[in-house]
């Protein structure tokens, strides 16, 4: 059977190390495999590594699966792993975080390999499901040892061809147009799917993508805009699969500068005042956003992390929506008549991002804050708000998924102190800073005991929450449109794995 | 039995405030093999009758009354589809304005061939052969080459002949020719008239010829209709009408025909005017606006000196230089025009007369030669201001009156424009007065100022362009067939005005005309051209009395005879 599906974005280069982005990794993950993989519920499973153990606190040993072949027929060995490790952390790779430069690799035998770490790290392999192993001979033969990077002037063989060990091989790839997969007969695992080939087309226009599903031209499309879910469901022959996603959408406020860049308050920064931040928080009716903007396909969040990724998330609660309390806080802070502030918002990045911002603006108007909304495409938005633009924002909306599925990633990127150039919490655009939180974060990284680790995380979140470091909004939902002929698994990380698909 | 039978025709142009009746109560008949001449005042409705017959009245014109029959079948009420089958095939039409009648984007050949093939069952090569034959028959030299050219590459007279060829090409039973020979020199005119007569005689074609030229009427027509103010005032056999005119208008019209044989001081004017009205009063230049001072210094030498003027047109472009074709319209022509004189230019149609005029006014850049105006070499002038200063002193009346008028401007604005831009009047109200006065002098009346050019008859348009040319108070006036579309009465009035201006103010004129009688009355010296070359230049009387060049003699010999005209009144003038 042929599976035809569409996604809103394109699959660009096929080099598995040149872009650390969910869809690219997801699409390549059907052809390539890592040492580990994640199952239907995101649990870590052995893949190319049959098993692994921490033989010393600083040494991890991986026992590789035997008899695995690459699509070109080469055998999979420890050499390939060692090669891939070097390649993934070489210059030009976008997946440098997969494995630190201080880690050394020791080949024990053809199918055993050791990783020696500078210090203990309980989450070493958390992201290895998307650290795909390449074939050393193939890569070298084709002159593709260097990672395909944007600054290359000649095309890299690995950018146009793929040679993995996965269940599907890529037989043709026209970036931005179409990519065709075929089943790889020599796959080591039992194939639960019944596909012979897969055709992927990027379709940027939401309406067209949905139409192509409704008309039966495609078997599966994603994402489905929240407003069209009902339509997809009610259409005979198609259904919408929805589920929570891991990304948390939040608002941030510039708490670093002594005067806001875009505000009518001069000489001081209202966001330095917790009361103002809290007033903003309490002015937002998250349930209304959920119901009206997200059509219930969102989970209001009280933390910057999804409850799926942090067990104790349910111990936190959102500050209640209370306009009067918010007004009172504003008065207390000395802004009974509010103030004007400009808000930066992407309009093509997250689900209904601009609509959320508009709704927030309208809600803040109730506490007399006049929001001047600047909604831009992501290219301009990120150029403005990120470090290279000098964190040129006063109030912004951002979404974040921790790549390692772990809170440390959040604290590191979003909460940690930073300086003007971006050293520190690079995506802490508002520049929230609390030394205590930073200290906790460091401890969390090296703590091996899960209980204690969770407690430390709890403490860090508690401080940030008390100080209203950010205003978490919600986890946006996943929505896939699927033909009734299809059975598949929708993973919360929004990765689409063909091996779970059956078509009849 | 008559081919064409017009009964009680009334044509009106409904306007916004009132309806203008252009033609009323006209009865005409044309028999097979016979030629009917229609003469009359400019604007009398002659063309309108012709247009009504072929069913192509200009909007919003309509036939309000009467019937038009062709071989006893009514044709004015036919649906558009069936009219198409009559046009071209049964009725050939020559419109008054030959210069705008041809599609500018199609070669003469394709226009001829398509017409021929529409009506006659010929192959395209046969049609082409016939087209060449026709072009030759109307006297255009070098027909097989000329035929592939575009209308704008033809001279005025040549285009007129193409139009004639087009009207005749499907061998129609009735030909309506609206001033078919205005732009033709006498020799070609004779050839064309001969062609028409032959058609009538051999093929039994009926013909209706509208013209101002009494010579033509006398020469070829069997019957004459005289129109005045939209009505038929006299209708009868030619010798009778011309020899013993009954109506006062006819009488005075005939008496006003300029004489080619003797030179008189002023042109006799028509003194018949219907309704209470005064005849045109002489203009008192001393006090008149037109006579006010001009700000240029007199020159000692000739005003215009032309030396070795050559004009070469590229008629076939090509990437390869050797395949390009050229045509020398003017070949090394030299002459002078003295201040205050009227310099006549006559000559074969297509001999380069208009081209010379256009070069002098700066519309064409000559390929070689120099033009000096008041001592300044015009060809070498580069300073825009100087060029403009020169231009102001020269003025041209274009051969084609209609296309030289901006169709989107009202007549009063057209005439006022030069006055305004040369600051010849101090206030707007003065400008308005001058415009109205000028309109009066060319016989249009002030009310004409409000209208647009397309609402006028051919002769009326010509007068508008004369008024515009005069409005600049020129020092040197180039007249390219200025009165070709005018009936003799209006013509006389205008030529007298020009003469007055010249006498009083020393206006210098270059006067291009085919009408030898007019030339004789108007000009001091005359140049004769043929084939782009100057044949001879001589004083007026010398030329008429003792022509030197063969071609000149040939022309003079062909002047239409005027024996038929009743000259009864002329002696009294």
């Amino acid at each position, binding site marked *: 059977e042929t599976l035809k599906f569409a996604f809103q974005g394109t699959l660009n280069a096929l080099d598995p190390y040149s872009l650390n982005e969910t869809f690219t990794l997801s699409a390549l993950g059907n052809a390539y495999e890592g040492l580990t993989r994640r199952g239907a519920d995101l649990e870590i499973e052995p893949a190319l590594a049959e098993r692994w153990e921490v033989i010393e606190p600083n040494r991890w040993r991986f026992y590789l699966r035997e008899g695995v072949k690459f699509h070109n027929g080469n055998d999979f060995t420890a050499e390939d792993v060692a090669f891939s490790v070097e390649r993934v952390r070489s210059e030009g790779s976008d997946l440098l975080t997969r494995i630190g430069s201080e880690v050394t690799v020791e080949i024990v035998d053809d199918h055993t390999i050791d990783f020696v770490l500078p210090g203990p790290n309980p989450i070493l392999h958390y992201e290895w499901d998307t650290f795909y192993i390449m074939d050393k001979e193939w890569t070298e033969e084709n002159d593709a040892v260097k990672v395909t990077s944007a600054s290359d002037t000649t095309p890299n063989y690995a950018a146009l061809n793929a040679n993995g060990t996965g269940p599907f091989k890529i037989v043709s790839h026209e970036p931005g147009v179409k990519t065709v997969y075929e089943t790889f007969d020599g796959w080591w695992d039992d194939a639960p799917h019944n596909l012979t080939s897969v055709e992927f087309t990027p379709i940027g226009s939401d309406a067209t993508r949905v139409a192509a599903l409704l008309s039966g031209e495609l078997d599966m499309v994603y994402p489905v805009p929240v407003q069209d879910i009902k339509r997809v469901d009610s259409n005979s022959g198609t259904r919408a699969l929805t589920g929570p996603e891991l990304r948390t959408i939040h608002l941030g406020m510039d708490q670093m500068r002594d005067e806001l860049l875009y505000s009518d308050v001069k000489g001081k920064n209202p966001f330095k005042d917790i009361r103002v931040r809290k007033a903003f928080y309490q002015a937002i009716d998250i349930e209304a956003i959920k119901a*009206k*903007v997200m059509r219930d396909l969102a989970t209001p969040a009280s933390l910057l992390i999804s409850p799926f990724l942090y067990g104790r998330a349910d111990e936190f609660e959102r500050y209640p929506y209370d306009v009067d309390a918010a007004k009172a806080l504003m008065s207390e802070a000395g802004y009974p008549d509010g103030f004007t502030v400009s808000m930066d918002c992407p*309009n093509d990045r997250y689900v209904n991002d601009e609509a959320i911002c508009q709704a927030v*603006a309208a809600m803040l108007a109730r506490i007399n804050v006049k929001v001047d909304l600047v909604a831009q495409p992501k290219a301009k938005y990120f150029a403005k708000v990120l470090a290279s633009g000098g964190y040129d924002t006063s109030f912004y909306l951002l979404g974040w998924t921790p790549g390692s599925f772990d809170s440390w990633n959040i604290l590191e990127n979003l909460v940690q102190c930073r300086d003007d150039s971006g050293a520190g919490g690079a995506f802490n655009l508002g520049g929230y800073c609390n030394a205590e939180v930073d200290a906790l974060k460091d401890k969390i990284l090296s703590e091996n005991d899960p209980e204690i680790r969770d407690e430390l995380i709890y403490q860090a979140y508690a401080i940030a929450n008390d100080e209203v470091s950010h205003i978490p909004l919600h986890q946006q939902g996943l929505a896939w449109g699927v033909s009734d002929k299809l059975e598949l698994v929708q993973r919360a990380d929004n990765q689409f794995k063909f091996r779970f698909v059956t078509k009849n | 039995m008559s081919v064409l039978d017009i009964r009680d025709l009334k044509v009106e142009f409904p306007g916004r405030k009132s309806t*203008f009746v252009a033609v009323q109560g006209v009865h005409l008949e044309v028999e097979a093999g016979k030629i009917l001449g229609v003469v009359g005042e400019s604007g009398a409705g002659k063309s309108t009758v012709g247009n009504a017959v072929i069913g192509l009245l200009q909007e919003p014109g309509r036939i309000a009354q009467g019937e038009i029959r062709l071989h006893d079948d009514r044709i004015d009420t036919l649906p558009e589809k069936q009219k198409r089958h009559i046009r071209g095939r049964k009725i050939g039409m020559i419109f008054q304005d030959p210069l705008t009648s041809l599609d500018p984007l199609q070669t003469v050949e394709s226009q001829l061939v398509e017409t021929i093939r529409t009506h006659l069952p010929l192959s395209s090569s046969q049609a082409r052969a016939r087209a060449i034959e026709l072009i030759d028959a109307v006297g255009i030299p070098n027909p097989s080459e000329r035929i592939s050219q575009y209308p704008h590459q033809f001279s005025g007279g040549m285009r007129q002949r193409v139009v004639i060829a087009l009207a005749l090409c499907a061998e129609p039973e009735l030909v309506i020719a609206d001033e078919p020979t205005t732009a033709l020199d006498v020799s070609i005119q004779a050839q064309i008239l001969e062609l028409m007569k032959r058609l009538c005689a051999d093929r039994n074609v009926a013909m209706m010829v509208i013209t101002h030229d009494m010579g033509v009427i006398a020469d070829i027509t069997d019957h004459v209709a005289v129109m005045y103010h939209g009505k038929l005032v006299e209708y009868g056999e030619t010798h009778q009408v011309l020899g013993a005119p009954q109506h006062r208008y006819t009488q005075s019209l005939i008496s006003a025909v300029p004489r080619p044989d003797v030179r008189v001081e002023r042109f006799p004017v028509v003194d018949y005017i219907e309704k209470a009205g005064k005849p045109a009063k002489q203009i008192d230049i001393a006090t008149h606006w037109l006579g006010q001072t001009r700000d240029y210094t007199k020159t000692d030498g000739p005003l215009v000196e032309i030396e070795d003027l050559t004009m070469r047109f590229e008629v076939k472009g090509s990437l390869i230089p050797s395949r390009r074709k050229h045509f020398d319209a003017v070949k090394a022509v030299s002459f002078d025009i003295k201040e205050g004189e009227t310099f006549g230019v006559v000559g074969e149609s297509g001999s380069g007369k208009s081209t010379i005029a256009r070069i002098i006014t700066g519309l064409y850049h000559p390929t070689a030669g120099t033009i000096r105006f008041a001592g300044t070499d015009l060809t070498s002038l580069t300073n825009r201001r100087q060029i403009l200063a020169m231009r102001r002193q020269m003025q041209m009346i274009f051969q084609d009156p209609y296309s030289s008028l901006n169709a989107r401007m009202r007549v009063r604005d057209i005439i006022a424009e030069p006055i305004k831009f040369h600051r010849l009047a101090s206030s707007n109200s003065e400008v308005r007065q001058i415009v109205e006065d000028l309109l009066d*002098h060319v016989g249009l009346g002030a009310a004409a100022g409000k209208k647009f050019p397309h609402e006028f008859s051919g002769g009326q348009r010509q007068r508008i362009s004369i008024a515009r040319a005069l409005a600049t108070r020129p020092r040197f006036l180039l007249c390219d067939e200025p009165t070709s579309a005018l009936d003799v009465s209006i013509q006389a009035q205008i030529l007298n005005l020009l003469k007055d201006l010249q006498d009083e103010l020393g206006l210098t004129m270059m006067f291009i005309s085919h009408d030898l009688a007019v030339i004789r009355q108007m000009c001091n010296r005359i140049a004769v051209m043929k084939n782009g070359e100057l044949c001879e230049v001589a004083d007026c009387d010398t030329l008429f009395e003792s022509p030197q060049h063969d071609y000149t003699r040939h022309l003079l010999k062909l002047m239409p005879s005027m024996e038929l005209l009743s000259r009864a009144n002329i002696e009294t003038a």
Partner: protein
Amino acid sequence: MSDVSEKQTESVIATDRDTGAPDTMSAFGRFMDSDILHSFLRSKVAVIAAIGTFMFFILAFTAPWIAPHDPFDLASISILDARVPPIWMDYADPRFLLGTDDQGRDLLSGIFYGMRISLIVGFCSVIAAAIIGISLGLVAGYMGGRVDAVIMRIADVQLTFPAILIALLIDGAARGIFGSLDREVFSFWILIFALALSFWVQYARTVRGSTMVEKNKEYVQAARVIGIPSIIIMVRHILPNVTGPVLVIATINLALAIVTEATLSFLGVGMPPTQPSLGTLIAIGNDFLYSGEWWIAIFPGLALALLVLNVNLLGDWLRDALNPKLR
């Protein structure tokens, strides 16, 4: 003056065609008597179209007084009112005649307010583009040679950049020059400027082409012989004869300008999303076509289509009215 004015030469048989008012009457009188007005009043379509267009302007500019809500006032809108259907449908809310959009803005008021933006931006940019284009086109066509080459190559450069890039460029440049600017004021100008810049070439090239043809005609030559300065020839003689295509393009471009404005706003260079124009409303509604909330796109779309229809009919009439032969 010689007084031959009474010499009558007109063939006046039945009634005098032009007994019209004397030239001395007032400007108003002359206007009332003018052919344009007359042809206007006579053309039913023109009158209806004019009234229609006028209505649009009235509605747009009196929006603050006549609109039932102020959709630009964020404090007055509530997301809870989002996507209410028009009054005649189930689940409607009597406050919202035509329903609401995704933010809970009253659609009827949104159309009135949005129209103001669209009308200003649309008309100003089309007029500006036409003025730039016509002048450059006339000059290029009339002068020819090097002037023509320079202008037309500038036009080619211009054509290369679509409106979105121009808008980004202008927006960036404006921010660079004026620093962080008052968006509400400047976004208008940026939009108008960007649209005008991207549309002028059409006018320029069309006018140039027609000018090249017209300038060889005898009436232009006659004007040159009279000694009228080139600039006047271009404006008074050639321009009226080449307006036909210009009017067609301008009236059609109006729609394009209004729609393009929405695209530019999406790129973040135009009006903020909290102040949607007609085009933006349509663009928003576009997302809701499949989900059954058709009214968000369709009502503003209808308003725009009606506006464009009226303006085009008016343009058709005007073109005819300006041509004396068609009156």
